[in-house]
């Protein structure tokens, strides 16, 4: 369960050094767009050395490789495949690309005796991928879908705006598909790193559509993103009241009950329980509720 995915360029030693202090739930080390073609080799070397030396990271590690349709993607994989890497973020993903990547991961995992299954986060950034979202979300290894709005609007030849009306449909479609197949829905980055208010608004809107995490392209965006995707204390208090009242109602064999003048039934109780699971995951519950 993640709220925030921070992109860090794979060729930026200072940011690598501090990756654990920014507060990101997950970090995506980027070998694709953030690294120029002349820097790819050194970035891969740096990533390899970093993964071999980092001790007990307090965030999940992902790597965005170059597209498999180029010759670079496979070289990236060869350099970064490591037990510590949680997953691979695949740009310009299609059903076929993901299947191909999955086979490559099988090969690397076997050859390097990597015990865990490396997951895949496809970036939905082409019209074709939007069309295939339902299929992509069901593929093995796929643990989340990430909306890439910049490339997607480029593919669609439409204007990318701060309001984001043009990405309403893919956002909603990703959110529904991810919910249906119980994987994470990761929202596209907000690219104006100086507009804190705009970021908060954008993240809240994505959350309202069903996204449960968002990418950051600057560490300063993490505070707002984490706050947005963490249950508020008010919501946690309300959920605790509902669950407590439900426990009391169960004792009296009542399926529906009233709390503060509002009717509470099973869907409301289920929602409250889900919220508390999330709150617990992010350490938001007091010690008395942790159990």
């Amino acid at each position, binding site marked *: 369960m993640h709220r925030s995915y921070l992109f860090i360029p794979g060729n930026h030693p200072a940011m690598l050094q*501090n990756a654990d*202090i920014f507060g990101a739930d997950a970090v995506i080390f980027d070998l694709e767009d953030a690294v120029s073609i002349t820097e790819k080799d050194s970035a891969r070397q740096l990533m390899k050395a970093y993964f071999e030396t980092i001790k007990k990271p307090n965030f999940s590690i992902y790597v965005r490789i170059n597209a498999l349709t180029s010759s670079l993607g496979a070289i990236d994989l060869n350099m970064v495949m490591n037990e510590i890497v949680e997953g691979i973020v695949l740009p310009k993903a299609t059903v076929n690309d993901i299947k191909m990547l999955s086979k490559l991961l099988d090969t690397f995992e076997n050859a390097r005796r990597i015990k865990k299954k490396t997951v895949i986060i496809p970036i939905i950034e082409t019209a074709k991928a939007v069309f295939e979202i339902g299929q992509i979300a069901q593929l093995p290894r796929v643990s989340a879908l990430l909306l890439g709005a910049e490339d997607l609007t480029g593919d669609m030849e439409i204007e990318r705006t701060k309001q984001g009306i043009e990405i309403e449909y893919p956002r909603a479609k990703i959110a529904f598909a991810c919910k249906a197949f119980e994987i994470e829905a990761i929202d596209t980055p907000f690219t104006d790193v100086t507009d804190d208010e705009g970021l908060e608004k954008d993240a809240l809107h994505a959350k309202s559509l069903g996204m449960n995490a968002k990418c950051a392209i600057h560490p*300063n965006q993490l*505070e707002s993103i984490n706050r947005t995707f963490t249950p508020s204390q008010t919501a946690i208090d309300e959920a605790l009241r509902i669950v407590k009242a439900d426990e009391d109602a169960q004792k009296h064999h009542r399926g529906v009950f009233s709390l503060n003048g509002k009717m509470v039934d099973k869907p409301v109780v289920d929602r409250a329980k889900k919220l508390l699971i999330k709150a617990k995951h992010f350490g938001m519950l007091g010690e008395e509720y942790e159990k």
Partner: protein
Amino acid sequence: MKNNLGREIFDQMKAFASSDAFEQEKRRLINTKTTEGSVVFLKNIEETFKYVGLKNGMTISFHHHLRNGDKVINFVCDAIKKEGFKDITIAASSLFPNNGPLVELIKDQTITGIVTNYINGPIANAVGMGDLKKPLIMDTHGGRARAIESGDLKIDVAFIATPAVDKEGNGSGKFGPSACGTLGYAIQDLMYAKKVVLISDYMTDNIIEPELSKHYVDAILMVDKIGDSEGIVSGTTKITRDPVGRKIARDTVKVLEALNLIKDGFSMQTGAGGISLAVVEYVKNIMISKNIKARFASGGITGQYVDMLENNLVDTLYDVQCFDLKAARSYRENRRHIAISASKYGNPFEDNPVVNDLDFVILGATEVDLDFNVNVTTDSLGQIMGGSGGHADTAHGAKVTIIVTNLLKARLPIIKEKVTCVTTPGEDIDIVVTERGIAINPLRTDLIETLSKTKLPILTMKELMNIAHDIAGIPSNYEMSKEPIGYVRYRDGSIIDTLYKIK
């Protein structure tokens, strides 16, 4: 000989014992003089030298309120050189890179001594190379006031850059093209110098409530321009966008909240560094959300504090120095923006200096050591690049003193076994906040007890140092030169450390 911190100091000098040793001493005051308002207006600097009787070997003083925009120090010193004076000591509250032309005067021994609270740029480099004939003396802001009033620092002539003067001989920092706001660092010079000259570029009929009273002024010299008021903006008045700095600021505010220091009627001071400014921003947001009002903020005042004053988040600003033009404007217009002298600010012998009333202060550091001693005077090679300013004064006075610093700057660990130079003694540093953990001075068991109940990453200083070493490696030892070129004088007049020539 060594002082109580184990630092080598010049023989026969008063050794630093502890930060509260001054409590056993009595305040020493030399007489102030009065001119009874008989101020003379002079035509030029040469005539001014004659009038005040400037001679070889004298000590002349300046303030630094115009900071890097000041033109008076260079103007006076240039004239001193042209007139052929020698062996002059400069007692300036600070010296900045724009005072670089003084290097030539140091080399030809027109200037042979410097007493200051902060120094960086070409002069600091020249002094570090051993070009200054007499030992450099580095004071604190409060300590300089003490040194002047006690006669430890005898000023023969104070040349006070004054943004506005009136026909009576009064002076103010509020008005004129070079208005810089308060003139807190010049007050002791005004009161205790044997001769006082106001140098100004703006004359007005009558200044009501002047900061500089004509009763202490001997002469006024009008010049074309005393400075560029835009230059008073400190280089570090922008809130940091650096994510590491912001993380440190956020954790600092968590510490403040955990210690219940942000509550109605609290008082605070912060430096003008980017992290400190971010702390203020976060504190401000908490104050707004919880409807909290502070009693006062003090120190060098920035526009950020002015916003808080104007939005009624703080009752009063006690301002010894305006850090930007917004602060200068506020001082001119707002009765709750009050000027204080360097003595009222931080002189340990004042009855109740403002620093003693601070609930907390946020300060920076170039180095911190395992004993919590802080260096803001030199870099790790011993090159002078700063000075205490109000660091040691506020650290002693405030109830809680917090150092905010990156654990690593570039690849250099900031926490060391021993700092290169002690500016502020560790006994006055309570908490050090870095991006990778928070250390609490073992002397503050009360703070340890409270903060250990929180989820904050509390570590020992040694643990923090080891983390830095794990990341960057252990820096190799740098052997300092053995040739002293000056010393750091603690606020009570004792010597806390020695400055050495750069190899």
